[in-house]
């Protein structure tokens, strides 16, 4: 039974009709009234920038906040591989339903049907919109858009711009945003960090933000507040997220009444550059698109793995028969393109069994040699009319194609590792990449606090327990361009009589005083250990006990360790510099303090969920073949956690009803 505190507000009717009908009946705000309604948006990534520009175009007064020096820096920029859309340009059988189905299945049957169907429906509009903005997607010679394949699907529906699709999409949204800034419809606040939301009479009415250059606290009123602040992967310290990515905005909202949905669902991405040493500050992703052409393997024999590790054997010299292409072996139907959670666990299994190929034993190969020669080299040779190409010709011709498709990724790999991936197989290992969990939202993307919305990675809504590749960009832009501009009408149409609230209101003053007291407390500890010291320790607890595999005992230990760490942090942290100046250490301290609290909730959630699903793998619950074993009788629900007091949360359940998809064990075999 769904908790009485949760109303997902899913429209009635047939799945295919829900959104169309809803859009046609949702209350509207007339243009004159839009001008007097103010909307605050926190975060300027794909979700934030697209929402800001779209809402400003409609006539609302918008304020956007980002902690970076420009909205163009938001971490969406780093997304590499592509964006999914059910365009069926390839004539390979794609459809809205198939994208919907793949997403639900890929999420291991833990996402809400109506939201996902809507996402699939608007996906095609996103591509149209981006092309109209001048986003230079990859094209074929005839001038049409090109597509590639991503994990968990058997069609080619991924649009891309080399290995920097996120950059191009974000710059498109950023252009649209800057246009509105120029027109005076959006007021932009860069180098500002949101430190709290302000609730008045049960509704969210604004935020407290800190100007990161002067250190001053500011109060901002809004009729509605949209959090587009991204995910919380940096709770693990090492992740593919940007250094500044943080949970603070979402966490403050959580502590003011927004329930947190499925916090334990984290995505460990299979293809990242392995850790090289303890100085490491972040991990770098090698796009999933590489699995189109890269084959993942380890040696079949442990002796060979040992010889490779000690440098006695060059992997290029290991015979084809002595290689174990373990994804192709275990999952013949999807091969190297199984979803991320499945690929990550399979790599971990091989490395744990002693077949890892780098010095730490935690790496597998991603090898392009075969496709360079046989897929691309041959094709190019045929095009050129070379009937009996030599091995060298095949290599040269194939490499040119690989370079065009993935050049920037290969350069990045070489720069980081010092190894040339055109000549040697890449070494990769899973790393924290994305968080499916986030603030619980209803169909309108509104949290449990009226007037407070969460978009993009910051919400929990569309990816269930595992996100498919190229779907994050799709969701961020869907939420911002095509969902919230409609759904916000349901709320704001009732707010047209609300006059802007004076920011001297006691609720604003109280929230600012709390934020100030906390900053002063951080500055005043004057302990002996740096913020990073605590962040690294938190990361290690989370990775070891709440990472790719979890068990009840480990999670209980982790909770105790995190509580100890929290106490130590508030006694021992040292924040240098001053309160009222540009002070990056102070910013980090606040964020890490929030991560510590979040880490505890993630472990609580993982401990509560006595099943394995998607990215949440509990060692106690697996099939004989080591696949995730769901428990649909007891855990077919969204866990929405309500903050009660320190280290104390109340679990609320939203039961997931599958009316259109038959729920089954996922199989990619």
């Amino acid at each position, binding site marked *: 039974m769904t908790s009485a505190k949760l109303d997902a507000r899913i429209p009635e009717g047939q799945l295919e009709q829900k959104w169309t009908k809803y859009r046609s009946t949702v209350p509207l705000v007339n243009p004159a009234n839009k001008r007097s309604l103010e909307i605050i948006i926190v975060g300027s990534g794909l979700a934030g920038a697209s929402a800001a520009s779209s809402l400003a175009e409609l006539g609302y007064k918008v304020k956007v906040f980002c902690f970076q020096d420009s909205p163009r820096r938001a971490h969406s920029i780093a997304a590499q591989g592509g964006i999914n859309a059910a365009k069926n340009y390839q004539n390979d059988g794609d459809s809205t339903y198939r994208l919907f189905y793949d997403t639900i299945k890929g999420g291991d049957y833990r996402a809400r049907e109506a939201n996902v169907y809507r996402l699939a429906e608007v996906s095609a509009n996103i591509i149209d919109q981006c092309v109209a903005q001048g986003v230079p997607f990859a094209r074929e010679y005839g001038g049409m858009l090109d597509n590639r394949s991503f994990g968990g699907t058997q069609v080619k529906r991924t649009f891309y711009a080399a290995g920097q699709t996120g950059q*191009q999409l974000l710059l498109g949204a950023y252009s649209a945003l800057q246009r509105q800034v120029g027109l005076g419809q959006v007021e932009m606040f860069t180098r500002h960090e949101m430190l709290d939301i302000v609730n008045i009479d049960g509704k969210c009415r604004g935020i407290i933000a800190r100007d990161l250059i002067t250190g001053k606290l500011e109060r901002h009123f809004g009729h509605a507040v949209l959090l587009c602040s991204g995910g919380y992967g940096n709770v693990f310290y090492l992740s593919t997220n940007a250094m500044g990515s943080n949970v603070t905005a979402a966490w403050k909202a959580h502590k003011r009444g927004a329930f947190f949905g499925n916090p334990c669902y984290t995505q460990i991405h299979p293809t990242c550059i392995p850790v*090289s040493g303890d100085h490491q500050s972040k991990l770098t992703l090698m796009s999933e698109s590489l699995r189109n052409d890269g084959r993942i393997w380890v040696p079949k024999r442990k002796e060979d793995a040992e010889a490779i590790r000690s440098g006695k054997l060059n992997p290029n010299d290991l015979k084809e028969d002595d290689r174990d292409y373990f994804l192709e072996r275990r999952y013949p139907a999807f091969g190297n393109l199984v979803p991320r959670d499945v690929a990550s666990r399979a790599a971990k299994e091989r490395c744990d069994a002693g077949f890892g190929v780098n010095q730490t034993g935690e790496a597998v190969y991603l090898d392009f040699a075969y496709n360079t020669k046989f897929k691309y080299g041959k094709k190019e040779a045929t095009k050129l009319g070379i009937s009996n190409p030599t091995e060298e010709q095949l290599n040269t011709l194939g490499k040119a194609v690989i370079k065009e498709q993935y050049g920037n990724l290969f350069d990045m790999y070489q720069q980081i590792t*010092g190894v040339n991936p055109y000549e040697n197989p890449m070494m990769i290992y899973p790393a924290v990449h994305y968080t499916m969990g986030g603030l619980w939202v209803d169909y309108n993307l509104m949290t449990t606090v009226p007037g407070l919305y969460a978009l993009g990675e910051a919400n929990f809504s569309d990816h269930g327990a595992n996100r498919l590749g190229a779907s994050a960009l799709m969701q961020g832009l869907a939420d911002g361009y095509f969902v919230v501009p409609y759904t916000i009408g349901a709320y704001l149409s009732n707010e047209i009589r609300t006059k802007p609230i004076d920011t001297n209101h006691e609720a604003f003053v109280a929230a600012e005083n709390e934020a100030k007291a906390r900053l002063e407390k951080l500055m005043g500890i004057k302990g002996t250990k740096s913020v990073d010291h605590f962040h690294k320790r938190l990361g290690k607890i989370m990775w070891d006990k709440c990472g790719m595999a979890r068990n009840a005992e480990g999670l209980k230990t982790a909770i105790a360790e995190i509580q100890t760490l929290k106490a130590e942090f508030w006694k021992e942290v040292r924040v240098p510099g001053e309160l009222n100046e540009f002070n990056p250490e102070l910013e980090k301290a606040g964020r890490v303090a929030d991560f510590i609290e979040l880490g505890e909730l993630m472990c609580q959630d993982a401990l509560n969920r006595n099943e394995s699903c998607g990215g949440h793998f509990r060692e106690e619950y697996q099939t004989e073949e080591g696949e995730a074993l769901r428990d649909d009788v007891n855990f077919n629900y969204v866990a929405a956690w309500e903050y009660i007091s320190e280290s104390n949360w109340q679990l609320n359940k939203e039961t997931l009803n599958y009316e259109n998809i038959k729920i089954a064990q996922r199989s990619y075999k």
Partner: protein
Amino acid sequence: MSGNMNITLKVWRQKNKDDRGRFETYPVQGVSPDMSFLEMFDVLNERLINEGKEPVAFDHDCREGICGMCSMYINGRPHGPLQGVTTCQLHMRSFKTNDTIVVEPWRAKAFPVIKDLAVDRSSFDRIMSAGGFISVNTGNAQDANATPIGKEDADTAFAAAMCIGCGACVAACKNASAMLFVSAKISQFALLPQGQPERKSRVSKMVAQMDAEGFGSCTNTGACEAECPKGISLSNIARMNRDYINAQFTSQQM
């Protein structure tokens, strides 16, 4: 400590925009060749914090060469000695042990220093607001394949669109000109059919804003292209100049 390189850093320290600023020298020991340049700064900062001193402020975020936030001027070159690489992707294996490395902020009137190595690049955002877009509201778009775009044009537009807006071109230029940055955005749209309706007004407005921000003029030295971490081509500047002249002569705006 994980490495065996010893480095001497001479780093620009400046409390805030009004401070005069000066170089400070810091020896950094135990540097690993696998560290990135910024990770070496992390090591230095950790030590400064432990010694009760103020760490060096610098901008950085994605640390994978795409967000454009990192911005150090290293031994007289923006983003350091390698071509096609941002500071965050520069690794210590590009240096030798016992090297002395001089690190400064971007220096340009239009990029005032905020603190130490961090500068204010909001002038770039204002240039974008002046015209760096195609005026199309959400929901107006036709089908994405309705207008075919030749692969060559699409690829050239993409090559210009790869600019990360870091400002290295400005820092490299003896005139602190922003022509490479501005021309990259103008070229991206000039090469695409979607960019045609506003082609003339775009170049006029963006150039006007660029001048208003206090960036210098271009004297075709080419330092910007040589130092650009994303290989943005000087030919974009030529295209912008052509478009600009064309716009000035043929504009119907009075």
